[in-house]
């Protein structure tokens, strides 16, 4: 994925890898480290929490904590790569695009997902995908990352009701 990002984006100084908490943030850091190893250039990273921009407010029985978003200023002239662990319905990505808009007007938005499991509700596709994983809609995909979950890296597919 890091190679693809470097290939697509000639000007790495204009790039921002914006992770969606929690695992997208960790993945953005890993991608930044890989890009540094490949291209000897440190790209900017950021955090984009989408909680305030979701379209299901008032529909959930409980709320997780909202993280502070952080993006470099100004965003104009920059390319922001939204980084998430699993791409599913596309609603999180839609919310991330709205959230980024409140920081400014980037030149270009791209999407990187470690796993694309299909079943989109919205006309959204990823620019960079680690692994396409065919799933049934009721199944659950969980990504585990050592720095977040204190267990070995892994992608788990769970059957419904498990």
């Amino acid at each position, binding site marked *: 994925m890091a190679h693809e990002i470097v290939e697509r984006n000639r000007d790495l100084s204009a790039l921002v890898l914006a992770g969606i908490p929690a695992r997208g*943030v960790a993945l953005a850091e890993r991608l930044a480290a890989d890009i540094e190893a490949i291209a000897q250039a440190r790209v900017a990273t950021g955090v984009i929490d989408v909680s305030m*921009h979701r379209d299901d407010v*008032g*529909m959930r029985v409980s*709320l997780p904590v909202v993280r502070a978003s952080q993006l470099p200023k100004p965003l104009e002239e920059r390319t922001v790569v939204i980084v998430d662990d699993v791409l599913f319905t596309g609603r999180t990505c839609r919310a991330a695009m*709205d959230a980024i808009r*409140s920081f400014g007007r980037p030149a270009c938005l791209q999407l990187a997902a470690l796993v694309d499991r299909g079943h989109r509700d919205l006309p959204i596709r990823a620019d960079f995908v680690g692994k396409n994983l065919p799933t049934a809609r009721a199944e659950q995909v969980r990504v585990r990352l050592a720095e977040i979950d204190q267990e070995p890296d892994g992608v788990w597919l769970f059957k419904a009701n498990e």
Partner: protein
Amino acid sequence: MGSGFSKQMNSSILRWTRKDLLGLRELSAEEINFVLETADAFKQVGTREVKKVPALLGKTLINLFIEPSTRTRTSFELAAKRLSADIVNISAATSSLTKGETLKDTARVLEANHADIIVLRHSSAGAPQFLASRIGASVINAGDGAHEHPTQGLLDLYTIREKKGRVAGLHIAIIGDILFSRVARSNIFALLKMGARVTLVGPSTLVPREFEQLGVAVSHQLDEVLPTADVVNLLRIQHERQRKEYFPGLGEYIRLFGLTKARAVLLKPDCLIMHPGPINRGVEIDSELADGVQSVILDQVTNGLAVRMAVLYLCAGIATP
């Protein structure tokens, strides 16, 4: 950005499930922390190019202020607007309560108008609890009598945590009219839960020894408390709540309990000076100190907006039965 991870782990297991915020007494330390962390995210929104988020788009908030207030009402109004909620202000003078309508009927009328959140300020302790148990809308206590003022307690805590990096282990002196102060009560409940040491200071008529049962120290000698305080929170003398005189006169109050320039030399250099406002300059605090380097009085106002955005987002953001 890697530094954010350990912080992210803290409360990620916890989720918010309350539709109302009635007081800080019933919140756990974890829940208080949860609100403060959520407020961090909303404080960041104030630095964006577009300072408005669609979190409460389509929700309606009613500011029902049966007792006068400018700063709290304005703060809630701005918070609601930054969350994209629609807002209506109702004050005592313009409400039908002056025509004899009961609080419950007023609230039911508001609910029939599809209000999702009612922010209530009322002169009677317990009014928000009364309302919350009878209607489906979220009820946020914006001050009930001398009982609690939870969002003020939270913004005080947020300001201390922001400036000092922690709350646990700090010594907080709350000075002045404790007996009639809902701000004091909310502060006491929250500070003790977060592991701070609290000393209440004031004349024995306004700071009776009974408060010690809450787990705080009580002192009537300000000069003895100031040297060890990490934060002094000065409360306004609430003339409107005192039916009889609780101290001989303002001159004597200032001499014994006012934070004067002469007395401020006793403070640690990094001691924070806080005041919930409105300030009686020259009574609780000398003008120069209120505007001085130790004062975080205006930070409290700014943080109040972030804390109230967090509270509205959390309480109104969950599904109601």
